[in-house]
């Protein structure tokens, strides 16, 4: 966890420095705002990882001497197949087409999106641990 945290915090710090220099020096604000937001976007997960890295033992993937046996056990639950991503994607497709060809296309769009959300959630529940 520690390396992950350091990468994100380091990037955030650099963006923060760059932002400070740029904001003082330049005559426009858009770039400064975007760099500031970039800094926050690095600090948020970076801070989370750092907080955890000080409170947990090294995971097997962080331990250079770990054996495969140390990682034994459940990795996670992975769906085999699912039709719902396609349904959700098609719903988004219709909603974007509505921007161009008429607002009525939002109706099938939202319908497909909700259908996919309900279907996907139910699929997760049926399958057990997700």
């Amino acid at each position, binding site marked *: 966890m520690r390396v992950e945290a350091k*990468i994100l915090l*380091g990037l955030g710090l650099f963006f923060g420095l760059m932002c400070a220099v740029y904001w003082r020096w330049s005559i426009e604000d858009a770039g400064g705002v975007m760099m500031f937001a970039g800094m926050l*976007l690095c600090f948020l997960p970076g801070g989370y990882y750092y907080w955890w890295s000080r409170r947990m033992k090294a995971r097997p993937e962080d331990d250079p001497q770990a054996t495969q046996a140390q990682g034994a056990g*459940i990795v*996670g*639950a992975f*769906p085999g197949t699912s039709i719902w991503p396609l349904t959700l*994607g098609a719903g*988004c497709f219709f909603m974007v087409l509505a921007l161009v060809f008429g607002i009525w296309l939002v109706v099938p769009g939202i319908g497909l999106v909700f259908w996919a959300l309900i279907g996907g959630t139910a699929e997760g529940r049926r399958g057990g641990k997700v």
Partner: protein
Amino acid sequence: MVDVLDRPDVAEEHPHEEHHGPTGILKWMTSTDHKVIGLSYTVTSVIMFVIGGAFAELIRAQLATPNGTLVSLAQYNELFTMHGSLMIYLFAGPFAFGGLANILVPIQIGAPDMAFPRLNALSYWLYLFGSLTMLSGFFTAGGAANFGWVAYAPLSNSLNTPGSGADLWIGGLLLTGFSAIFTGVNLCATIFYLRAPGMTMFRMPIFTWNMLVTAILILLAFPVLTAGLIMLYCDRHFGTHIFSVAGGGVPVLWQHIFWFWGHPEVYILALPFFGMVTEIIAVFSRKPVFGYKGMIFATLTIGALSLGVWAHHMYTTGVVLLPFFAIMSLLIAVPTGIKMFNWIGTMWRGEVWFSTAMLMAIGFLITFLIGGITGIFLASPPLDFFTHDTYFVVAHFHSIVMALVLAAFGGLYYWGPKITGYMLNEFVGKIQFWLLFIGTQVFTIPLYYLGLDGMPRRVAVYPHNPSWQNLNDLSTVGAVMIGLSTVAFLVNIVVSWKKYPCGDNPWDAHTLEWFTTSPPPHHNFYRLPQIRSERPTWDYNHPGHTAAAHSHHTEAPAEEVVTT
């Protein structure tokens, strides 16, 4: 159906469980397996490359004579806009972070799948639907988008570019933008949480490292583009004046937003291909990567600097902080130079095997060097003022992206056997390489001269000037050679279709993906080796050399060079 997965044992065969899933078109539609999705991404993006390439051939045919009449002026605008859009938005990025990264990153770190398999599938569908949305502009009355792939305000507002082609372009980009963001989340989560025991961060293959930095850059950059596109749509249809002077808006703001995405995007495109080339050069030089950690820090530095260089595309607007952006842009040459040095260092005194993949990687180095050095010229404001919007810029970034295309084909020749289980024909591959490599130089180098002579970009006709016409003709010849090289690749797929089975590890390669079968089973591994360096598969296959730590100069003994 959800599979709950256990970690595979060390070097102990599991009973090979057959995965019973749908086949054919249903498999394409429902699979959440990262390899199937990655292959869908790869095939779709190569189709986009072929379509975008066809546009390029039309553009070059039009420019072969000063007053070309192959296409109308309006059609020419559509062609160069959609050529750029297809190649940048729909080919180079999705091919790398959606295609090869999707297939390889989980296998390289010993994971059974991506962290969020269904989100991964959604990314693909958003990408496919986004591509169809953008391309469907050609079937509308006003034609496809025609304001250049950068959609500068106020050219892109509803007065100057009316019609639904532009809106379809915006809509398509919204969809593919979200697809990229979801892939970025997925890659980060996979790399942070699903590594195999012993696979510490500083043992990950360079390709995976580069994909991590790419994913972070995607998360930093793409939301900005999405926000900008929504503002542009509001300007076009809801009467806002964010980018129009008339209502108190600022047109240059669009350029700031676009390039704040657009320059990190350049590295989002380039870093995956840097990673591919690193893997290829190390394997075919029979050496570990030279300067493994230096390579990683160079990648991280490029990622960090990439957020502070966007306005070097906007020097001539006259309202940007020239010294800041010149310093930052010139600084990028340092980590890139380190990479170049390390690539050469990896080959140095290695047993170099000139397979097609290796030739493509070397072709990448040379072409990228040309593009990189002309990039340093352009980072300097006085030179940029002189060459801005001329063919010099076009030549510069085509050297860069053609280098990426060389690397992409190198990646396909190197990892294709792992993905399909079959090798491609080396002889046809080498024909393809020479066509592509020579074609690229014949195509770009005349453009540098044209640019320095003042020929502006994005013009369908140019003055009768024998030297300009000769240079344009030469460039067109190069473009035709590049087109033929793509034909050679398609021919290669046909002639080597299921002909040369490759086994698990045809190149005697280093990283974990070569430890599993070709193609890998449903959840990637039946067994895993102990991971003690950044080359676990090589360590397992060469037990006498396990001490080879990274960045040590170790030479492979001659008897271990595999020849086929």
